[in-house]
């Protein structure tokens, strides 16, 4: 690859759900429940989803945008504290290009009858895609997303 580069990034997302930690945790630990919310694009085709939820277990997800390259997620679970914490690592491929390797942590905290979920991703984002995809189009879409984000 020409000029490989690495960008490290961390982001944190918080949500409060009107549900007990037991229910929120179950939605992460049971494959049939997780498959219901794990998609992030309605119009992408789901090719494969599998979850082996235990320490050392794997999770795989393969999806494909209309007319686009397959996006493959491959995760491994490193730490599981029922109803409190999940730590997993995953990589993402788009076609043959590995675009990121990440450590992700989900922390579940009871808050009254509700649950505060804190999701933290620490990733090494790689540039492999720049050789594989339509860069100009991607840049345009990325900028539109950024603009939409800033306009909120």
């Amino acid at each position, binding site marked *: 690859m020409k*000029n490989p580069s690495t960008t490290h*990034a961390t982001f944190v*997302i918080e949500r409060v759900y009107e549900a007990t930690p037991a229910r929120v945790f179950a939605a992460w630990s049971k494959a049939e429940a997780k498959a219901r*919310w*794990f998609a*992030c694009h309605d119009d992408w085709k789901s090719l494969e989803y599998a979850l082996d939820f235990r320490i050392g277990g794997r999770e795989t997800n393969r999806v494909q945008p209309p007319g686009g390259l397959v996006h493959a997620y491959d995760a491994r679970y490193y730490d599981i504290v029922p109803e409190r914490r999940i730590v997993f690592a995953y990589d*993402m491929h788009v076609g043959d290009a590995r675009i990121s390797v990440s450590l992700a942590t989900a922390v579940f905290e009871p808050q009254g009858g509700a649950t505060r979920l804190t999701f933290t991703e620490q990733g090494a984002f790689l540039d492999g895609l*720049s050789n594989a995809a339509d860069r100009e189009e991607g840049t345009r879409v990325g900028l*539109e997303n950024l603009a939409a984000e800033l306009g909120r």
Partner: protein
Amino acid sequence: MVNYSPALDQVFHALADPARRAIVERLSRGPASVSQLAEPLPMSLPAVFRHLQVLEESGLIRSEKAGRVRTCRIEAAALGAAERWINERRACWERRLDRLGEYLAQHPEDPEPKGKRP
């Protein structure tokens, strides 16, 4: 060859202004001269130049002067693959966790109550 990726906050700062976003959106369709960029904007030419300077410092665009015309173009490397993927990844998890909330609201029954579990 541009070897560095500008920090995301620089890029965000550059894009935090509607006029600069308009400039970037125009340039995403192809290179343009400063006067072409200025035409639709309700501001003086010096103000446009200041915005272009911020965008250039962020690494989002570059410009070059040929004769009396300064032409600007998107610096594709600036908002490179990595930055794009970071933004998309975050947006993806935001959507997932929103969907999780919808799922929990629609499935108030599961899992089984605590007392029944081994």
